[in-house]
């Protein structure tokens, strides 16, 4: 088995065909038709990844995502009907790691799911202690401290910070960050990087409007200070 996936989607056709596609790709798939059922299934058994539709009856996908995040760091990929920046922002704020825009092709979805799962496996591999300005980053414990106080980052924000901190002063393009952090090996949506960066800055910078730790390089990407 490649992984155990919980798929929450209200439309029967989409649910069925997605499940077929994921199973064909080697995943174990459990399905739920609404948010409430999804939450019950999540509590009933351990999963390696959650695929959540945003618009769901009874409890919508964002709410379900928040509920799951309270107890778990399991990778969550949202299925959004619209690719608007607003939806991306709201999804990431609810704690999602990635999103797939509807309509999607099943191979594309499978690739994103694999990428999200790979990140989890990769994380354990490189324990390290990094410093960025006043921040201390512990990659093994996945914690960030400033002045002895913990800063709570989501998985994506943490990975983004580590990726930039490992190469101080080096410009990282959005595409490289998409590849390294989200595991995209094809053209992705660079707004994902910008939105995540904005949220990261809000947590780690003393003044997010004039960042000192991670700087924007106009027309290129981002870099961390040396």
């Amino acid at each position: 088995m490649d992984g155990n996936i919980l798929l929450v989607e209200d439309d029967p056709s989409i649910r069925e065909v997605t499940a077929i596609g994921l199973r064909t790709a080697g995943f174990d798939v459990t399905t739920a038709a609404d948010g409430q059922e999804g939450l019950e299934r999540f509590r009933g058994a351990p999963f390696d990844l959650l695929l959540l539709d945003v618009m769901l009856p009874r409890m919508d996908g964002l709410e379900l995502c928040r509920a799951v995040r309270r107890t778990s760091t399991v990778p969550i990929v949202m299925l959004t009907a619209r690719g608007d920046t607003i939806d991306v922002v709201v999804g990431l704020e609810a704690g999602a790691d990635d999103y797939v825009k509807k309509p999607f092709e099943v191979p594309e979805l499978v690739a994103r799911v694999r990428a999200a799962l790979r990140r989890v496996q990769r994380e354990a591999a490189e324990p390290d202690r990094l410093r960025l300005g006043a921040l201390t980053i512990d990659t093994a414990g996945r914690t960030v401290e400033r002045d002895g106080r913990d800063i709570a980052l989501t998985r994506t924000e943490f990975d983004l910070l580590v990726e930039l901190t490992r190469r101080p002063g080096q410009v990282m393009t959005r595409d490289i960050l998409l590849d390294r952090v989200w595991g995209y090996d094809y053209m992705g949506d660079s707004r994902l990087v910008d939105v995540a960066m904005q949220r990261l800055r809000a947590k780690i910078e003393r003044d997010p409007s004039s960042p000192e730790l991670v700087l924007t390089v106009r027309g290129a990407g981002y870099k961390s200070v040396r």
Partner: protein
Amino acid sequence: MRGIRARLTLTLIALVVLTTLVLGLGSYLFVDQSLHERFRDDAAAQARVDFQVLIPSRNLPPNPTRTDLEELGLLAAFRQRPDTDTIVDIGDGDPTVAAFLGRFSARLLALVESGELAYEWTSVTGRPELVVAGRLPPAGPAFYFVHDASSIEQALATLRIALTAGGIVLALVAVLAARWVARGVLLPVDAAARAAERIERGDLGARVPVASRDEFGDWAERFNRMADTLQDTISRLEAAQAQNRRFVSDVSHELRTPLTALVAEASILREHLDALPPDARRTGELLVADVARLRTLVDELMELSRFDAAAERVALEPVDLGSLVRRIAATRAPDADVAVPDAPLVVRTEPRRLERIVSNLVDNAAEHAPGSPVQVRVRSRAPWAYVEVLDRGPGVPAERLDRIFDRFYKVDPSRTGGSSGLGLAIAAEHAAVLGGDLRAFNRAEGGLRIALRLPVTEPLPGREAAATGGYDRGPPIPSTQESPS
């Protein structure tokens, strides 16, 4: 409008001034005449009393001498009269008397000679005087009573001053009254002008106050009815348009769920086409292609309905147009012949939208001129930068050039190519959002040239001053650092 106000004011003032002049002059002449008549009648009455009572009572001898007159006290009695001199001609040729008489008219002297009581207005001593004269019958001495008439002149002078002053006051009052009246008359016109101006600016609720039951009132009511109809029609049209757009938006949203299922299903089917018998395989291939086509159509409809909802937000950033277009062309049209300036050409724009525009233009060129090379050019002419896509296709009849940016417009309706007919419409909407526009031209050598025009907001290469387009006149951001938007 100023013309009418001025004409109305002037007419009213002229009327008042004319009336004042006629009345003033008339009353002056009347007073003048009555004063003179009364003075003359009084003097004549006095003279009659003199001739009939006073002089006969002194029992003058026939042909009296000056001494007789003096001794009988007659001259003394006359001398006591105020403002009156008396000249007595006793026919003795006295030179002093003759000098006086020479100043009277011959007609007066002749009337006195014939025994009549006569009068004449004169000024023997340099002041206005009335001479009343007669002689004692049958050929006695002639008496000339010379009355000082200065009092009349003084009274008339006072009257003239009073009338002039009155006239001036009246004229001033007339000016004020005329302005007030003109304003009153033109008030509804001003109100109507203001209402029309508000409607012109798009405030369709503007109305003219109906303040009176006169022609203006009728007119105002008619104007308001017209405005009602206009407002009604426009709001109906707007509602219909909004409904139409909502319908398109709803339809594309409703299509999205089955479309998502279709796309996912087709993507799985595609993997297994080889396992199907030939007929089913071909059908499957067609199905996969048609799902892709449907997906494009729904995507584009949704994109357009977002423009209609004015839900577009732009995040402009400075971009080197040349290298961006080169990058877009490399991925979207690798075969295209790309020409960009060597020097950087910086525009403030949104790369995603620019990519959408350029790829739609390139797709359009590839579709309408299949097999011929597509050219992409970037050039600038302050304050604009241009991205042009040129093809060698059949071009578009000149009269339809403007319409190719309409939704679902197809130059040749019989063609049922892969495109939805929305690509250029979408490109034009994006261009407008970026502060530019799209225009199409037929090339002299055949084929179509579509030019995207974008405002240049950063200094053009080789120029000192910033050449700015009309949209964003903010100063160029000097450093490469920026905070996130």
